[in-house]
């Protein structure tokens, strides 16, 4: 399946289904960070908070 088609298919899912995918993506990010495969992003998070504040 092409990327645009896949994106369209994912975009057409219900909000509930998309949230479940978001949760899986988030958990995967956490696992990667916990395994030390990717540096966790304290600086980015801090900057983000400052930007939002």
């Amino acid at each position, binding site marked *: 399946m092409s990327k645009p088609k896949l994106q369209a298919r994912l975009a057409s899912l219900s909000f509930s289904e*998309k*949230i479940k995918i978001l949760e899986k993506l988030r*958990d*995967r990010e956490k696992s990667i960070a916990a395994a030390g495969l990717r540096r966790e992003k304290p600086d980015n*998070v801090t900057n983000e*908070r400052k930007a*939002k504040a």
Partner: protein
Amino acid sequence: MKAAIELINHMQADGIIGNYAIGGAVGATFYLAPAATVDLDVFVTLPSASGTPLVSLSPIYEFLKSRGGKVQDEYILVGDWPIQFLLPNNALEEEALREAVFATVEGVATRVMTAEHLIAIALKTGRAKDHIRILQFIEQVAYDPARLSDIIERHGLSAQWTQFKNRFLEGRNE
């Protein structure tokens, strides 16, 4: 997420918050293919804020802490989701909160900012990740261009929009 939204609705029913709307990456997910995010941005109004110069989010934190929420800096962890509560700090965010649309997550009602307001706020915020999100809206044709133009013009973002288009969309059709 469902548990977090149920608690937020509970806070609203108890009068701790007034109106609320989901923004940020989770809000964008209502319109787009899901993209990884680590937190939930919730814009709120506080009923007690009217007419008083000082506002505090502490009633929200106290409510959620009493129901198992854990404070982590400016986030509060509800279930697995770090939530950041934000007060609208300009006319654009106030309008976005006011005009948010209804949605449901696993049968629980909630409100999400419109696609056009999410784009305009991202444009105003202007970080790299905001630009990426705008491009996702454009690539996935997930907004109303006329409505976005109206918002951009009314909120004084025309110069930023032109700059964004020149930088990222030059040579392609929107």
